């Protein structure tokens, strides 16, 4: 019907509130989302019954197979941003936005080649459950390890708030409730399965969620092509639009770098590709795999669905842009509305339900991973700073309590802060983790000359630089705007580069320490 309206050149609405109010299929859509949430809870219940120890809770009992690992890594990497933020970014800056997703061309190869084997070997010889544990075992430095633990704990709680807000927005559309209620419902469901079943629940919901994300993406991309009458028509409509004629903006929009300078676009790619080595919620998945030989197909199995899911962002983003430019659709009120406007205008209630469930999946899987590593940091890494270690039962009990506390703090932050505040929290995201942890983990486990002083300096500087630059940018501080801001430097890339340089230089300038025999075996294998 809506398609017919488009053919009759009626302009379709793009205000999500109006679209939701007029949407006749919403009960069916909501039913599908509820059904999906029940499946997630059932998996959580099953996993809770199987979770007996802290090892089960934090690293899924080291019993994960290759497909589960791949789908978990895929769905934890590509959070709600891929489905909500990315189509909006394509709508705003053009094809260049795809470089975020295109980092998958090399990202999982780096993750598997640089950290996969070493992390899995490490867990065989030492009691390692977190990235901070891994840093401690490599450098024998409590300071470096605790610094990494604090970065992980603070970072994930803050980052979690941004995920929850996205979840709240989606649930508010589906159930016609407030965003605050959406945030609370999303968090309660995530906590129910994350607290009970820990990482075991997280991994198996990720398998279900990852599959759903990939399948939904293919269908949505196909619909986008069909509505726009093929990719050539879609791109030509944008390229030759009179609204984007000035300065060849239309041509640039569909070109490989979009309307931003190429160096700005390539920076996204570099940061997401190399920075993956510093993402605690991904690196610690290697501690969970049952058989080290099963690492074999992991990178491939993770990359393929990631490529498929990337097509969704592109298809929806360019289609909505072309529809707006040709007058078939009202301009979006907010770029992030692109996916909602697409689903409600061009697809069926069933697909809308599946897609909303897919988006919720993406957000929940990332949120669950974050909750798990935050609680692991709190019950393992922070006590280490005071020279204590909890026993297995205490770790499990306090792990669950901390997961609950982290979740509650995140809800309070997501609900209590303004959108500017949330944006500021988001600054403490991927780039900061990359700058703080990538050199110590990635180079540290592949270079015997690396020293604990190099690791501590790199983690400390990466963390500080990442936060200072992002906060300065968000607050539009004069010193920043007149220096790096003026040059258009990507803060994450800059911080990561400086952190790598500092790690190498400080390591070369300080005395090399003897590496334990078993750690040496991990690094030599």
């Amino acid at each position, binding site marked *: 019907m809506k398609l017919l309206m488009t053919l009759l050149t009626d302009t379709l609405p793009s205000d999500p509130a109006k679209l939701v109010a007029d949407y006749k299929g919403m009960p069916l859509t909501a039913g599908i989302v509820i059904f999906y949430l029940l499946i997630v809870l059932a998996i959580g219940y099953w996993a809770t019954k199987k979770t007996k120890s802290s090892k089960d809770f934090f690293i899924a009992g080291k019993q994960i197979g290759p497909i589960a690992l791949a789908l978990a890594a895929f769905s934890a990497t590509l959070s709600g941003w891929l489905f909500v933020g990315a189509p909006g970014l394509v709508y705003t800056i053009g094809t260049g936005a*795809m470089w975020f997703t295109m980092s*998958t*061309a*090399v990202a999982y*190869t*780096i993750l*598997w*080649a640089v950290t996969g*084997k070493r992390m899995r*070997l490490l867990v*065989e010889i030492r009691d390692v459950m977190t990235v901070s544990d891994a840093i401690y075992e490599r450098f024998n430095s409590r300071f470096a390890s605790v610094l990494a633990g604090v970065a992980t704990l603070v970072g994930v709680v803050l980052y979690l708030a941004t995920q929850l807000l996205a979840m709240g927005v989606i649930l508010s559309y589906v159930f016609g409730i407030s965003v605050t209620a959406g945030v609370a419902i999303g968090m309660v469901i995530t906590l129910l399965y994350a607290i009970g079943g820990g990482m075991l629940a997280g991994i198996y919901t990720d398998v279900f969620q990852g599959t759903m994300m990939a399948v939904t993406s293919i269908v949505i991309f196909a619909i986008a092509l069909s509505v726009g009458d*093929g*990719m*050539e028509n*879609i*791109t030509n409509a944008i*390229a030759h639009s009179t609204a984007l004629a000035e*300065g060849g903006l239309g*041509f*640039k929009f*569909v*070109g*490989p*770098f979009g309307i931003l*300078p*190429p*160096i700005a676009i*390539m*920076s996204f*790619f*570099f940061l997401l*590709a*190399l920075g993956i*080595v510093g993402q605690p919620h991904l690196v610690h998945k290697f501690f969970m795999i049952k*058989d080290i*030989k099963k*690492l*074999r197909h992991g*990178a*491939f199995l*993770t*990359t393929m669905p990631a490529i498929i899911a990337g097509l969704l962002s592109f298809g929806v983003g360019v289609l909505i842009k072309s529809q707006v430019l040709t007058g078939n659709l009202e301009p979006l009120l907010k770029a992030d509305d692109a996916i909602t406007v697409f689903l409600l205008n061009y697809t069926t209630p069933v697909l809308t339900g599946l897609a909303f469930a897919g988006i919720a999946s993406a957000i929940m899987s990332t949120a669950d991973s974050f909750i798990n590593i935050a609680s692991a940091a709190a019950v393992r890494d922070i006590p280490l700073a005071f020279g204590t270690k909890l026993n297995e039962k205490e770790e499990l009990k306090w792990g669950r309590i901390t997961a609950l506390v982290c979740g509650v703090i995140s809800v309070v932050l997501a609900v209590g802060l303004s959108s500017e505040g949330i944006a500021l929290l988001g600054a403490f995201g991927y780039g900061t983790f990359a700058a703080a942890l990538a050199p110590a983990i*990635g*180079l540290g486990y*592949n*270079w015997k*000359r690396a020293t604990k002083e190099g690791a501590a300096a790199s983690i400390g500087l990466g963390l500080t630089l990442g936060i200072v630059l992002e906060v300065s940018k968000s607050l539009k501080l004069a010193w920043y705007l007149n220096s790096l801001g003026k*040059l258009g430097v990507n803060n994450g*890339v*800059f911080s990561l*580069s400086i952190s*790598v*340089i500092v790690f*190498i230089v400080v390591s070369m300038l300080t005395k090399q320490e003897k590496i334990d*025999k*078993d750690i*040496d*075996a991990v690094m*030599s*294998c």
Partner: protein
Amino acid sequence: MDKNTKLVMFILASTILLVISQLTKNSTLFAIAMMVIIYSWIFLGSLKDGKLPKVLGMTWFATMCIMIASLLAMLEIVKVPENIVKSHVLGFPLPTAILFFVFWIFAGIVNTAIFSIRFKKDVLSDQWLNEFDKKTGSNLSISDKEAS
């Protein structure tokens, strides 16, 4: 200086070039330095006794060259915006098609497929696992399936 250290020194030099390219807004230098750094990290993770396994190394090196070449081609084409839509491949403007099909999908498949194909020879051979087991007292060389 061992080979890992030499490669790390190369990473250091490339990273300094990357910072310079950011501060001087030099896209070409950034593109080359970025790809060289990324693959140097991959090579560093794949070194065994200071040596890069031949087939794995050659394939990744070739992929790196293809990615750099496609990046430079894209940078060249977009210098004149009108050229972007002069020709299409599978509905995509030519440089965008290069980005999608060569830089992303082709590289993504080759990089990960070669890792899978060469895993037992170049990433984690049974002999290496045996050596690891001997040094650490673990029993990784026996998979769970074989053990049961």
